[in-house]
Each structure stands twice: as structure tokens, then as C-alpha cells.
């Protein structure tokens, strides 16, 4: 399973903070984005950063592993 996390403004638009996506060998970040982004286009329009296992990732071709944790995040506004 891939764990997908949402926070703050993105969580508000998706109306959940966490979902599970079935893992399949060879799956890329792009596959997850396509899968979830289609269901929540309004939420993904404000996604500015993506992290895999707490590390920012820029390459959507990144290959995922089972039990990875992905976070879709709006621009940070801490401090």
C-alpha cells in the first residue's frame, strides 16, 4: 500500500487527510498523481510540493516502493 497524506489547504479540498493507494510494482509518482489528481482536480491545482518519505521530490518519474508515504502540499506558510 502507498500512504497518501494531505495537509492544510489541500486536505480541506480533498476533504480527507489520508488515503491508501494499492501498490503495484513499477508504479511511479506520476501514476499516483494521475489517479488521485483526476478525482480532486481542485485540490491538485494548489499543490506546489510533493514529498516521498518526507523528502521533497521533483521528478514525477520517481519509482515508488511498497509502503512509501507520499504527501501533496500547498505552498508553506509557517513562521
Amino acid at each position: 500500500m502507498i500512504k497518501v497524506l494531505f495537509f492544510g489547504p489541500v486536505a480541506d479540498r480533498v476533504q480527507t487527510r489520508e488515503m491508501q493507494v494499492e501498490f503495484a510494482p513499477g508504479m511511479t509518482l506520476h501514476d499516483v498523481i494521475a489517479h488521485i489528481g483526476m478525482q480532486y482536480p481542485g485540490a491538485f491545482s494548489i499543490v506546489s510540493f510533493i514529498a516521498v518519505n518526507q523528502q521533497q521530490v521533483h521528478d514525477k518519474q520517481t519509482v515508488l516502493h511498497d509502503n512509501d508515504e507520499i504527501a501533496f502540499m500547498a505552498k508553506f506558510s509557517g513562521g
Partner: protein
Amino acid sequence: MSEPVRIQEADFSQDEEIAALKVSSKSIGGIATFLGCARDFSEGRDVSEISFEAYGSMALAEMQKLRSEAIDRFGLLDARIVHRVTTVRAGDNIVFIAAAAEHRAAAFDGCRWMIDELKQRVPIWKKEITPQGESWVTPHP
């Protein structure tokens, strides 16, 4: 002794943070700090409360990296970063950054770099609660 990098609900004491910094070295000549607090207005609207949310595990890891990078980059003797994640009202403390160095230039440069970078790199979001409703803050570019 408290950890030098923390995310917490509770308020913090500058005196305690400074005392903890000083323990690390007798060569400290200057400590620059930045304290971010909640204002009672934002872009012309009254703000009654500000509520914070964090991606806790990633935020803490980023803050720890930030501290190490600042120590290396500016030759700091020590540094601390504390961010509250809770709901605050006008005047309440939000974030504390401290940079200790032999001389003041490095302390100021390191402190300012850490708060600038924190805002760019640490996954924390703030929501302003006003009499007209709530809204997530969209940072300026």
C-alpha cells in the same frame, strides 16, 4: 535540557532557550534571535486567531537540516529553532530562531537565513480566523 529543534503546542521562554544555547560554548560573543508573533491584522482584515498545521515528521527533519546547514554555512557555535503548532491569538509567540556566534555578523546572518529558509522549506501551514471566516494563508512569492 530541551532539544535545540522542536515543534510543540506549548509556548516557550527566550530566557530558557538562551540559557540552553550558552551551555554549548563559552566563546559566544553574540546571539541574534528572531521571534515571530501573531499580529491582530493581516492585509487589512482583523485576525482573531491563527491556527497552524504541520507535516510533523517532515517539518522536524527539515528544521534539523536547516539548523545544521546554518551552523556550517555561517560558522555558528550553536542554533535553536522552535515552532509552535497550535492556535494562537494576537501577541502570542509562533516561532523562535536563535543563532550564537563569536561575532555579531555571523549571528545576524545565520538567524535571518534560518527564518527565511524556514518559511520556504518547512511544511507548516497557517490559517487565519477572522470575524468573516477562516482562510489559509497564501504566501507571497
